[in-house]
């Protein structure tokens, strides 16, 4: 069995174990619980894939916390301004690409620190998301007919939803999107020369430069993928209308996405990217969410301890493999 296959098996067993806890310990319907687990994990998969690719090329993107919140708020803002669904989604998608290009060029060509730049961008974008939320509240107060907020402003944190016609059937199916993205990413990773070059620069940037690879172009494309992944995840979540949207939705999501990517086999030091395992890791991470209502001893702290333990074990294993062996 290959190393990737071994990781897949372990992750699958972990997910099955968590599901079994819910069925046996919580008395949940097996099919319903499986649907809940997958449905909770699927929207995060695009973001985790994008972050995984950035890690695999040896970079880091913390801006997804801010961009995730901002993209959702932009969709709400443009929807409340009367824009059509097609134009709204297209514009925010283009913005996500431009954001990725901007960050990628600063990091790869100008050589700004990825950690500092993306952290700064996260704060800026998150602040803009809060501003947009404030504007929506003001607009809603002034013109209740245009209000898309539920509950009404002034009743505490406002959780906003998109109008019904924005729930594009495709975007309403996070599982479908996650499946297509994971399948496409796996095919790309295995077959594409471009994917091979991405992994090469993650493994040894100097060797890649000497081989004549376009390291700048490849790094920029990684940041674009991360930004687009953030947009897709926010669009999937907000379109699925899961409890509404607030500007703080992105808080902590960059760490969650990075942790999912690492548990899914992405090498911290770069050079390895396994989309299938990232999706399985998302399922393992998010699997405990539905269990909280079913099993008494499953609560957010348990989830944190469980995931943190898995992450620590993965980090130790990766470090151990890095000593003496050439595989990333």
């Amino acid at each position, binding site marked *: 069995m290959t190393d990737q296959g071994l990781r897949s098996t372990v992750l699958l067993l972990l997910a099955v174990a968590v599901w079994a806890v819910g069925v046996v310990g919580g008395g949940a319907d097996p099919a319903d619980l499986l649907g809940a687990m997958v449905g909770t994990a699927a929207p995060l998969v695009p973001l985790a894939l994008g972050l995984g690719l950035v890690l695999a090329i040896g970079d880091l993107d913390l801006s997804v916390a801010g961009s995730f919140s901002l993209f959702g708020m932009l969709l709400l803002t443009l929807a409340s301004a009367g824009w059509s669904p097609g134009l709204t989604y297209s514009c925010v998608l283009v913005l996500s690409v431009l954001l990725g290009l901007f960050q990628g060029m600063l990091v790869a060509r100008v050589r700004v620190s990825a950690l500092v730049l993306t952290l700064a961008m996260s704060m800026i974008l998150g602040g803009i998301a809060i501003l947009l939320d404030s504007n929506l509240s003001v607009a809603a107060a002034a013109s209740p007919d245009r209000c898309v907020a539920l509950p009404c402003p002034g009743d505490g944190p406002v959780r906003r939803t998109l109008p019904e016609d924005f729930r594009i059937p495709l975007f309403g199916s996070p599982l479908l999107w996650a499946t297509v993205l994971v399948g496409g990413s796996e095919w790309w990773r295995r077959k594409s*020369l471009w994917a*091979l*070059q991405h*992994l*090469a620069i993650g*493994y*040894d940037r*100097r*060797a890649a*430069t*000497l*081989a*004549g*690879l*376009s*390291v*700048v*172009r490849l790094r920029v494309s990684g940041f674009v993928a991360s930004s687009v992944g953030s947009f897709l995840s926010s669009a999937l979540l907000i379109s699925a209308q899961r409890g509404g949207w607030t500007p703080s939705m992105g808080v902590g999501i960059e760490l969650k996405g990075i942790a999912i990517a690492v548990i899914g086999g992405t090498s911290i030091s770069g*050079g390895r990217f396994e989309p299938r395992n990232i999706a399985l890791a998302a399922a393992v991470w998010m699997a405990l969410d539905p269990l909280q209502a079913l099993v008494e001893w499953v609560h957010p702290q348990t989830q944190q301890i469980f995931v943190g333990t898995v992450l620590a074990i993965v980090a130790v294993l990766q470090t151990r493999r890095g000593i003496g062996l*050439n*595989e*990333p």
Partner: protein
Amino acid sequence: MELKGVRFRYPTFGGQHGPDIFDIQGFPFAPGCCYSLRGSNMSGKSTLLRLMSGTIPALTGGVAAGSLLGPNHETRRLPVAGPTMRESGVATVHQGDPLFPHMSIWDNVRLTRPHGARLDPHGARLDQKAVKTKLELILERLSGDEPRRAENPLGTLSGGGQAVIRMLRAVGWGYSLLLLDEPTTYLDAGNRSLCFELLWDSWTRGATVVFVSHHEPDHAELREGAVSRGFRYHEIDLADKQLLDRSGEA
């Protein structure tokens, strides 16, 4: 390729720059020729090849001036980027170039595949299938290594085997200008012979070769191979910061 007004200085401590490593007013590399580049240690031979391939000053810093007239007659002002030169048809083997030992042998070779397949001397396309077939033949003949498959990790090959793969990666895809810096250093007779075989194969496509070596038998073999195949052979010297063609000298 033609060099025009090419100068380069390495950076030193404190953001200053050292003296010019070379100051080449002009030197043409004609198509279909082999240039055997000699020079004393520290004369800048490897630096010149790295400058022509675009890997410095990207990796080391430094100041480069001048221009290159590329294989496709495009003029590029220095410094140029490695990918730009690769897209122009320039391939390189640098001394001690690191490869990717965890990747398969085939992945290491196809990593530098150009956009669009080129033609071999018989007019056949140098696509992935053709190059992979050549790789499999080479893997059966590597000296000092057990037979390997193209899917095996590169790290399972000996240093000599990896050097041959490094050569194939540069010469196997039909690039028109080959910059080879000590490609056969420390190789045994069997693998050295394989490297030259790969070189003759690319040479017949009309490629231009610039070959650097401290090993006199390498220069002798190049000269003999060029003359026997009816190609032009030049001995050039990098001395006193200039490139001099010594071919006409006794």
